[in-house]
């Protein structure tokens, strides 16, 4: 499907004047079984086709089937769309669609005062009110006075729309998300066609269900048109984006595409060993469906086996990758250290989630930075990178693979729940424009066995001479015992251990000579620098700009390379009077910055399981800037 110009079709009727707005944030909330994720994703697609920039934030319970109507079972999907470029899914929604009392209860406090509430009044039964702990019906007791409320009989109207299709009551009722979606499409002037196409694609083989969903969608749209909801018909003009071909992408999809592309650019087959864990499982699941690219996925018996198999593949000269979340990293530590000691090119994806322990499996956090830096025995340096946006996950995989092979080292790439699930428009890269990734061992095939030393190092990178099995005359053994410099034989001498410890550390430090310097957005020096890393990029960027609009001169720099740091980082942080480091943890990067550069960096820290709030962060930036 391609669209070149936005159209306002479908918005013909209704006498209420249409208003223009720059940016709107809508949140769909309902029971896990209400299809809110589906509705939200369809809305995102329609928004993409319309030409807005957008960002989404799905939020779902960890329980697969919490009791229907309960607070624990509420699932939501937020989308922010704009005529400008945007970098976050928005803090507070302008519109909340609440499919039942529990959804209203859980999400009302987020809605901006005066915001629009679309409520499925059919679900406000005494039973459901009780499950949501409402002492009285909020639709009747005046407690929603501060909002503009559209009470719609979403369930009954959807059932009526599909009445003569002979569906079971349950299937008929299921179409209510499409009714709600149709109504919201009318409110925001979205084209129905992309969704109608999608329904055909998805349910084409079940013509009755496809027809029911189409009808519910149209009925919801017509409901908006005929009910003439005053003040609610809003249009957000398309954004001016860099020209090109775009698709929608989430962080996890970008990891998958990055891995396949890395396999293409290295000309190596991909081996992905993984044990299912939220929020990293999608990567395993999606890769498993791509065997045509020679992908070998291996659902291991546990986290240790997952990394063990990936190490085996890396040792064999392949593209060995494992992916997990924080609890899995904890289990993989010992094996990761084997890759540090044997110096093998290994990629580890850590899609971070909220901890400690099982924590909140479906919620986001940046709390694994110190774990991946230091959570292993001995002096164990490795390379750590972090993606800053869903689309950036793609490019950081390529970067991680490049460094893993160039430096013959394990590399950890950090993503998180927020990036994993958030969708944004993404300019599709031209694979022919991407640089090939060099695999140094290929040049060693014809090395003279007399000259071969597995721990001889490249003078510039200090990468060791890695040779996978198979080459005659180069047979040798590696392992987790300390290695003798150059020969790689087992060695216990004090001098050698000191030397090898230094070499392993220096090798990782030298990566800094092969990565870009840190760029500063804003003044090159001055009063205040905001330094961020990972998925908070969008929120921090937005907050810094809002603070600038409020009259403060503030610099912003964002780290994608966490070990080693870009070589100019020490210089950058020393050029400002104040350094503020916002993080979704209690100050992990701040600890590293203070320890490395002796700067009195301040923190802005939220550990809520939610992405940083750009609004609260703006306040914090302005406060520190005004001090």
């Amino acid at each position, binding site marked *: *499907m*391609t*669209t070149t110009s936005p159209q306002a079709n479908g918005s013909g009727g209704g006498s209420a004047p249409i208003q223009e707005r720059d940016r709107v944030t809508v949140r769909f909330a309902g029971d896990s079984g209400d299809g809110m994720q589906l509705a939200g994703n369809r809305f995102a697609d329609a928004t*993409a*086709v319309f*030409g807005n920039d957008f960002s989404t934030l799905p939020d779902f319970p960890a329980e697969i089937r919490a009791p229907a109507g309960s607070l624990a079972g509420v699932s939501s999907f937020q989308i922010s769309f704009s005529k400008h470029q945007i970098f976050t899914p928005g803090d507070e929604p302008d519109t909340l669609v609440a499919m039942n009392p529990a959804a209203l209860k859980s999400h009302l406090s987020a809605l901006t005062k005066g915001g629009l509430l679309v409520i499925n009044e059919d679900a406000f039964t005494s039973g459901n009110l009780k499950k949501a702990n409402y002492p009285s019906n909020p639709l009747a007791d005046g407690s929603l006075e501060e909002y503009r409320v559209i009470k719609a009989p979403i369930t009954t109207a959807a059932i009526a729309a599909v009445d003569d299709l002979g569906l079971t009551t349950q299937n008929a009722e299921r179409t209510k998300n499409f009714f709600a979606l149709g109504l919201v499409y009318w409110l925001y002037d979205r084209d129905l066609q992309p969704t109608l196409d999608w329904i055909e694609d998805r349910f084409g083989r079940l013509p009755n269900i496809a027809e029911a969903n189409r009808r519910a969608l149209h009925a919801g749209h017509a409901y908006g048109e005929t009910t003439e909801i005053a003040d609610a018909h809003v249009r957000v003009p398309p954004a001016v*984006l860099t*020209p*090109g*071909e*775009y*698709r*929608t992408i989430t962080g996890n999809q970008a990891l998958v*595409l990055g891995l*396949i592309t890395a396999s293409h650019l290295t000309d190596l*087959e991909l*081996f992905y060993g993984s044990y299912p864990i939220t929020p990293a499982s999608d990567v395993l699941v999606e890769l498993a469906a791509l*065997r*045509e*690219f020679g*992908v*070998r996925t*291996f659902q*291991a*018996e*546990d986290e240790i*086996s997952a*990394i*063990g*198999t*990936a*190490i*085996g*593949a890396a*040792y*064999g*000269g*392949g593209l*060995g990758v494992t992916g997990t979340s924080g609890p899995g990293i904890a289990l993989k530590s*010992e*094996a990761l250290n*084997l890759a540090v000691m044997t110096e093998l090119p290994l990629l580890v994806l850590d899609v971070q989630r909220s901890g400690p322990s099982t924590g909140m499996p479906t919620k986001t956090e940046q709390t694994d930075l110190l774990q991946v830096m230091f959570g292993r025995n001995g002096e164990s340096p490795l390379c750590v990178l972090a993606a800053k946006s869903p689309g950036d996950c793609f490019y950081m995989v390529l970067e991680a693979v490049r460094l893993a092979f160039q430096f013959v080292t394990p590399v950890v790439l950090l993503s998180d729940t927020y990036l994993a699930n958030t969708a944004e428009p993404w300019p*599709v*890269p*031209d*694979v*022919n424009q991407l640089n090939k990734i060099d695999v140094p061992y290929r040049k060693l095939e014809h090395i003279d066995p007399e000259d071969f030393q597995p721990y001889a190092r490249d003078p510039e990178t200090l990468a060791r001479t890695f040779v996978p*099995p*198979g080459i*005659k*005359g180069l*047979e*040798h*053994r*590696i*392992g*987790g*015992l300390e290695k003798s410099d150059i020969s790689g*034989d*087992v060695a216990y001498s004090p001098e050698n251990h000191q030397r090898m410890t230094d070499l392993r550390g220096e090798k990782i430090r030298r990566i800094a000579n092969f990565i870009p310097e840190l760029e500063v957005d804003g003044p090159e020096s001055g009063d205040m620098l905001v330094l961020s890393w990972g998925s908070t990029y969008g929120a921090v960027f937005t907050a810094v700009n809002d603070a600038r609009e409020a009259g403060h001169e503030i610099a912003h720099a964002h780290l994608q390379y966490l070990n080693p740091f870009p070589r100019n980082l020490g210089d950058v942080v020393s050029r400002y009077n104040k350094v503020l480091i916002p993080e979704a943890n209690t100050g992990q990067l701040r600890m590293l910055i203070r320890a490395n550069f002796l700067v009195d960096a301040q923190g802005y820290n939220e550990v809520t399981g939610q992405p940083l709030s750009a609004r609260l962060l703006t306040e914090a930036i302005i406060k520190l800037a005004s001090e």
Partner: protein
Amino acid sequence: MVLHTPAAPDLVENIIPIAEENLSRKDYASDVDTRWCPGCGDYSILAQMQRSLSNINVAPEKMVFVSGIGCSSRFPYYMNTYGIHSIHGRAPTIASGLKLSRPDLQVFVITGDGDALSIGGNHLLHVLRRNVDVKIFLFNNRIYGLTKGQYSPTSELGKVTKSSPIGTTERPLNPLSVALASEATFVARSFDTDPQHLQTTIEQAARHHGAAFVEILQNCNIFNDRAFADYTDREVRDERLLYLKHGQPMLFGEDQNKGLAVSATGLRVVDAHGPDVGLILTHDATRPAPDVHQLLARCQYPEMPVPMGVIRQVTAPTYGDYLDSQIEVAKFKNRQDVAQLLKGRSTWQVE
């Protein structure tokens, strides 16, 4: 239970890469000095491994030894092949990833009773269940050697060791039973002091297509001396061991005067010259049901003779066979290039 004479084994042979020139035992030995205690059973196993590989004439550059941690796991350093001495218990995982991504290599796993059955127990079950084409040699000395003599998961109940000064309080695992219960397609046992038998067993394992599990009884003369001597000593072997051969009756004893037959509770010993001679079982390693194999695995001294040799060998597709065929089919059916994949289901144009 009625048992039929086995049909001729219909086994898929493992394709082993062969060296161009004729190699002798010493071509497989590295120049690293061995570090085992003098008299340790590991020396003999090393020698027989080198001899077996030279009998097959395996190409050394295509051989990889993967081990965990323990005295036994030092093994790869002494082989002039590729090798990785990894971490405790995890060798089967590294071997799996290696073999699945490099089907051209021969991957042998060297492990100990603690390495394979304690810390690495989970991996052993799964590598066997998956039938990954790797050969696992478990050196069972019924003790933790490297950590200096604590009891292991195969130490007998009540055994006095450094960490059980008044005897253990836990029952041991039987490695062969574990392997059979894990759906292993090749299960065998041999021991350090019968070089010929050990060589033959190693070669049989090497030629098996699929995961092979070989328990090698190994004497740790420092911390658990003579653990198997009661039945492996030269003078008593004939009486107390049952050398299994596929298609041959299960006979043992001086002049093969005894045999095994089915009893109400399992197996029993019968007189090969007596009236029950007709009941003596014929060994069928290829029998799909693992029933008799389990009964054999559980035969223990002194009640029963201790079986040696290949207990089970059945043909089944390996994990790699399945995986490779999925890839081949997908490449044929879903022709798609990276550029198409990057576009996903739908794109839009911004101008």
